């Protein structure tokens, strides 16, 4: 997927100017934390499960090669083909090869952020294949020529009116009203059914890989994943190496956290375990199954201080609770992953230089870390990325200068107190009449949006000093 993270601030400004969309985001931001909280409140083992899963994930990542090998062995024994892809290009060409070997023309695709990461759809289309997204949100976004704005709800930025107009435009189905959202869902279902039946290859993602039995686990609310997996003769499952878990019970433990954190449901409508191709006695299912496991920098992340981000469940809770995501929406982040987890992952999977603004899109409010079911210290990781920007001189020069000058001065208390005393007196003089200043030298960022409250008569330290001197004099007399 083409990256536009380097224009984060401009993207954000555009997003905030669309007041209707901004209002919808405000409603979502008020609503989603409530449904998550209700769901967590009704699940008495939330904290123990969170702690348990953290240990399991850490253990698995510590022995990732072992569990990947075990998964591969089991998956092969089940009759699957297993491919490892080091780079996005490798994943794309592996999948394209599979499609071409089967002379496929039509692909039914389930939701997969990994294939967004690699830009798979565009690659397949370049080779002349027709790829239809079958997750309703992904379908809407694809048909509108857009990109997902949320890792869980790709079309959350669209209103019902947007979708109605889109469907009326793209589906040649004659005069109709599509008055209710249920009418739109029914229409999408009808249209998509044809694609499921015609597709020669189905491509889906996976929420977890289970090492002990070689299964891939997928949750959906629409059942489209199962249709992609079971109707076409060939199934391709694309995911990343960090999704592997040792046991089936670990995957189900993860589900208990993932679904509640994502949508506030106790579980999704569909939870599927894909074991492999159809066996002799099976009546249906794919004839051939390929599992493609992408690395794309994850081995390097595993060896870095950002290893914890590999424990991310992709629930989207950090997006739903981030006031900055709420303000600017998902597209502003300019790539596949949004919000706090996206601001950590994007620089690590692409480059810090291209996405230098993202780690700064954080007030360290800590709400993401509080709700993260994987207990990932997202604000600390974002701060560490800013530290990397600082040492690699990606921080703008005037900021570096300002920060360094302030720290230098603050390490010289006497000088600091006398200079700050002078500065306060000056500001006081400028802002005394109204109590605030409209403009402030060297603080254009602040004064573009805010007045600057004028300081009181003198600094605390000066006033205290004067007071103590007066008291001493009184005692002496």
């Amino acid at each position, binding site marked *: 997927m083409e990256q536009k993270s380097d224009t984060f601030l401009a993207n954000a400004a555009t997003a905030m100017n669309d007041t209707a969309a901004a209002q919808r985001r405000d409603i979502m931001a008020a609503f989603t934390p409530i449904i998550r909280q209700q769901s967590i409140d009704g699940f008495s083992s939330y904290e123990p499960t969170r702690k348990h899963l953290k240990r399991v994930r850490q253990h698995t990542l510590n022995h990732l090669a072992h569990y990947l090998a075990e998964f591969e062995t089991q998956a092969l024994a089940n009759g699957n083909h297993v491919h490892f892809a080091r780079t996005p290009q490798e994943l794309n060409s592996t999948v394209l090869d599979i499609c071409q070997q089967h002379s496929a023309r039509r692909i039914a695709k389930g939701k997969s952020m990994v294939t967004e990461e690699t830009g798979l759809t565009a690659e397949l289309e370049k080779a002349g294949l027709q790829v239809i997204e079958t997750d309703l949100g992904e379908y809407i976004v694809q048909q509108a020529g857009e990109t997902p704005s949320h890792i869980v709800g790709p079309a959350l930025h669209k209103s019902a009116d947007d979708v109605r107009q889109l469907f009326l435009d793209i589906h040649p189905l004659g005069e109709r009203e599509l008055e209710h959202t249920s009418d739109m869902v029914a229409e999408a279902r009808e249209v998509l059914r044809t694609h499921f039946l015609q597709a020669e290859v189905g491509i889906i993602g996976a929420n977890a890989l289970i090492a002990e039995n070689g299964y891939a686990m997928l949750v959906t609310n629409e059942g489209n994943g199962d249709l992609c997996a079971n109707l076409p003769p060939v199934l391709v499952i694309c995911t990343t190496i960090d999704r592997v878990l040792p046991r089936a019970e670990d995957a189900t433990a993860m589900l208990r956290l993932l679904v509640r954190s994502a949508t506030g449901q106790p579980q999704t409508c569909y939870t599927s375990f894909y074991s492999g191709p159809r066996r002799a006695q099976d009546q249906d299912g794919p004839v051939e199954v390929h599992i493609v496991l992408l690395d794309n920098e994850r081995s390097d992340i595993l060896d870095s201080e950002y290893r914890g981000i590999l424990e991310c469940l992709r629930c989207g809770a950090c997006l739903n609770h981030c006031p900055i995501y709420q303000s600017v929406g998902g597209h502003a982040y300019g790539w596949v992953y949004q919000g706090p987890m996206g601001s950590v992952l994007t620089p690590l999977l692409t480059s810090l230089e291209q996405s230098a603004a993202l780690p700064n899109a954080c007030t360290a409010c800590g709400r993401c870390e509080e709700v993260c079911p994987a207990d990932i210290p997202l604000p600390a990781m974002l701060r560490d990325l800013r530290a990397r920007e600082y040492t690699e001189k990606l921080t703008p020069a005037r900021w570096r200068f300002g920060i360094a000058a302030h720290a230098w001065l603050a390490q010289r208390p006497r000088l600091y107190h006398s200079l700050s005393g002078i500065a306060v007196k000056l500001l006081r003089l400028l802002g005394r009449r109204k109590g605030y200043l409209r403009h402030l030298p060297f603080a254009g960022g*602040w004064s*573009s949006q805010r007045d600057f*409250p004028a300081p009181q008569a003198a600094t605390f330290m000066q006033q205290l000093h004067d007071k103590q001197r007066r008291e001493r004099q009184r005692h002496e007399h």
Partner: protein
Amino acid sequence: MNDVSSDQSVPSERPTVALFITCLVDLFRPSVGFASLSLLQRAGCEVVIPGQQTCCGQPAYNSGDYRGARALARQTLKQLEAADYVVVPSGSCAGMISEHYPRLLEGPWRERALAVAAKTYELNAFLHSVAPARLPVVKVKTDSVAYHDGCAGLRELHVRKQPRELLHSVCGITVKELQQPEVCCGFGGTFCAKMPQISARMADNKLKDVQASQAQLLCGGDMGCLLSLAGRASRNGQPIEVRHVAELLSGDLSAPAIGKDT
């Protein structure tokens, strides 16, 4: 109030409290510093104000200048470690000292940081649960008050009920609760200068919430948030009065509200 403070007539001893004034209070609102000083004295403490204190290092830390932040952390620790307690009229600076210094420093300095962390309190939390004496009741002319929970105080230090209970017991004020009290106001230290438009939108959301609560006065425990909200309200022409909670608890509202004419 806990047992320690319930017997106010005979405080067993006067603990020494180092008051870390914070750079924003020092520069922009000394009255909050004097209010804090007076509150701690009324609560039965011997207060010292280390004269070499400047900044806790948070701007450097959050901007990724860990070296600068470490130097300021060591300097600040040296100023504070002699006292029985360290009290800070700011959740984010208190959180910097108690949560982040131990992460930032290594070796013997980390030990010293942990020792100071264990006795560092945000002002409300200290007055509510640690101080030897209960605060005397004061008269405050307003009872239409909303409280802004700074994020660091709320999530790092779990300061939520303390200021509300203090405002109730000391000033007779029942805080008007916001719809989304746990949402950040958009200040975020250097964030508000780096991403002013996003920050302003977040402040506007917070101010809308305050307006809907029909409170006439917004108070809180963090000067950063308060300066930012007062500055945005002033730019928007919103008449809300913004003050630090220490001003209310001390009963002294003689200083004009933040950003108001003198």
